[in-house]
């Protein structure tokens, strides 16, 4: 069995997270992904930790390894005319190009869709850009933090009882992951259209808009009610909150009325729970300042795992807070085969987070470790594009590859 995308050839020019994550999702479902990096240093993710063994090394970056496993790697200088010519040969028989070059960099390199379309009319070219390819902020400098902020996610998070503390970003590179996931969806839609005869096209993905698309009710509260959601203001429905237990943390979650009633039973029907202040989910939201200490007091005496299972036994969707060790040791995830053993020539052997989905006929699978910078230059440029060994040597000498 091969993955559902085993016939697709994708070329990626990706830095950090967004475009690399989109191409990773495709590689993991069988697509052949060729990642093109700058010969000088490669993808900036190579400079980011965590590093296997703890010391910075371009082939040991956990971020790079996570996002680029299953890909082959080329190092080509696209600013050199001969480098660009090689790149054009590469995309002449590719199904998709996924990149996140900045719009100004696209201009400098002459990366116009029309040009690539002439070379390969079936090519889907996906441009992932912080702010898209148009508009007054097209060329703004962006990092993950600024995009998570500008998309409206960051403002929603922080210490409820301490408005003096700043809004708080989420771990890692969440704007990049969201830009990447939405880019994968859009690219796959365009590839499906191409398979049905639509030909190639240019797909543009804005990371800011990807974030602004997922912020729950925060993007409609203003147009619908003239209200702004804040990290410290009341939430419509409660409890949806993290509490400390005597031996860990738990997420208390009562969205529907029956879930609250069942949770009250789990707590042994305390008298306060029948007060009018708390007898309906919106009231529990409005009166959460009164409710929270009562819940914290009771939950604080419980064991997290025990409360989790007791709540779930009554269909109340509580969940424990996991440390990374809890994930790796989870019997459930083991039964699902979530973690996959990966062996990397320089980073060693480790467990790798696996498939977020199981497709019954066409598996998700790991086929190769993340590439070293330029690892497949000879294999792809010599073996597949037929560039003579002597020419490769010259290109290498001139730092084109």
């Amino acid at each position, binding site marked *: 069995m091969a993955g559902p995308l085993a016939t697709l050839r994708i070329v990626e020019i990706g830095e950090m997270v967004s475009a690399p994550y989109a191409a990773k999702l495709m590689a993991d479902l069988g697509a052949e992904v060729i990642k093109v990096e700058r010969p000088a240093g490669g993808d900036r993710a190579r400079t980011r930790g965590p590093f296997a063994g703890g010391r910075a090394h371009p082939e040991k970056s956990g971020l790079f390894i996570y996002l680029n496993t299953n890909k082959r790697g080329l190092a080509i200088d696209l600013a050199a005319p001969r480098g660009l010519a090689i790149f054009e040969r590469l995309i002449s028989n590719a199904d998709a190009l996924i990149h996140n070059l900045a719009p100004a960099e696209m201009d400098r390199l002459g990366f116009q869709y029309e040009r690539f379309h002439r070379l390969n009319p079936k090519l889907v070219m996906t441009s992932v850009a912080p702010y898209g390819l148009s508009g007054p902020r097209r060329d703004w400098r962006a990092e993950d933090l600024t995009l998570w902020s500008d998309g409206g996610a960051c403002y929603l998070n922080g210490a409820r009882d301490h408005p003096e503390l700043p809004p708080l970003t989420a771990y890692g590179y969440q704007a990049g992951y969201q830009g990447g996931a939405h880019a994968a969806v859009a690219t796959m839609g365009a590839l499906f259209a191409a398979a049905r005869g639509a030909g190639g096209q240019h797909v543009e993905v804005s990371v800011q808009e990807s974030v602004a698309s997922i912020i729950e009710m925060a993007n409609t509260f203003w147009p619908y009610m003239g209200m702004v959601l804040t990290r410290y203001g009341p939430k419509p429905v409660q409890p949806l909150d993290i509490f400390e237990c005597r031996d860990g943390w738990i997420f208390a979650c009562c969205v529907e009325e029956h879930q609250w009633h069942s949770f009250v039973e789990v707590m042994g029907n305390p008298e306060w729970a029948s007060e009018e202040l708390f007898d309906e989910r919106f009231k529990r939201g409005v009166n959460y300042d009164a409710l929270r200490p009562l819940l914290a007091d009771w939950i604080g005496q419980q064991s997290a795992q025990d409360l989790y299972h007791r709540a779930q036994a009554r269909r109340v969707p509580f969940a424990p807070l996991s440390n990374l060790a809890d994930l790796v040791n989870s019997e459930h995830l083991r*039964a699902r085969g979530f973690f996959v053993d990966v062996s990397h020539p320089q980073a060693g052997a480790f467990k790798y987070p696996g498939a977020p989905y199981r497709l019954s006929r066409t598996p998700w699978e790991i086929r190769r470790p993340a590439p070293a910078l330029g690892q497949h230059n000879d294999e792809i440029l010599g073996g597949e594009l037929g560039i003579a060994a002597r020419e490769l040597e010259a290109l290498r000498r001139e730092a084109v590859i």
Partner: protein
Amino acid sequence: MNQLPLTGIRVADFTWVWAGPYCTMQLAHMGAEVIRIESATRLCVSRLTPPWFGGQYGVNRSGYFNQYNQGKRSITLNLKHPRAREAALRIAMKSDVVINNFAAGVMDRLGLGYRHLVRLRPDVIGVSLSGYGDNGPLSSYVAYGPAQVPLSGMSALTGYRGWPPMHVGFSYGDPNAGSHAAFAILAALYHRQRTGEGQYLDMSQWECTMALIGEGILDYTMNGHQPERDGSRDSAMAPHGLFQCRDMAELVAGRPVDMWVAIAAADDAEFARLAAAIGRPELADDERFATLAARKRNEDELEAMVSAWTSARFAAEAAETLQRAGVAAAVCATGRDLAEDPHLKSRGFFVTPEHGEIGRATQAGIPWRMSETPCSIRSAAPLLGQHTDEVLRDVAGYSPVEIEEMRAAEALK
């Protein structure tokens, strides 16, 4: 070629709340005919959740529902009734994709499980989008999107330094599982286009959420290390955080809204530009701040100096000044900032489709553009049961008389 990528693809959508609806909205954006099977006997939680348009409660007035169900049709079926179950089966058999996020076994009990459907329609793509996936000891457990943030390990990594683990502020597990599901469905459709084969997709929201912290998980599996929470700081950049600006002048809901600007200096050169922009060019040569290592050592002091500059300015003004100097900065946007954002406006991101009850409300649109198959918000979210009759007639093949009988028997509630 003005057909959309999924023109002619029908999706029977048995999902509810947010993860499933976010998934099927992606498919609707691309032209799929998405039929949401709803019931007045068990209203979708998102119809029961604010914001209410104009502040007035109503099952068709929720911004939450109306945002994430654009471009779909709605039919009401009371699946406790055998004739409703038969109608649901007929719709499913006419659909390319059948998706649910019920707990394991519910679709089977309704006679709508994949094993049954595939006998009637071998190329169907069946999708289960549950909290924990189809197998494993916790597969019967229920999950909501916000619980996925702590469950996935993301909360343990998110928080102020030295403070308890934190959430991310919204139900992140849902839309993330939805977009991953949409991608997997498109991959399965692609495979079907090539081979004629349908298949079954077992999706776990938990696993989709863990996919977002892969590099953190690798720190543990490679090094046995659980990273410390460190606020909004970054080990590779300084400054990197949110800095307080002047409050929004107008009051919202009776109080001023605090405003912040996000600033990230990726390297020493960007820090030098930042220092110049805030009127402290000498900091670039100050040994306490000249290098990343030095800035990380003196980060509290550094942040205080940046704050001293930002606190005298409005956030938009601060962001623009820093961007002119070539520094990554952006407003920590509120919902109002987004709605009034000139950049998003110039890109046409927000849309105002005509809705059957509330008229034209502003909704977020589509975060991608396609040059040859231009996706668009083709219609506002449906009223509850707005398309019941036409779906029963056109898709399920019932006569008007049969539809009236079913209604009289209370199967269409």
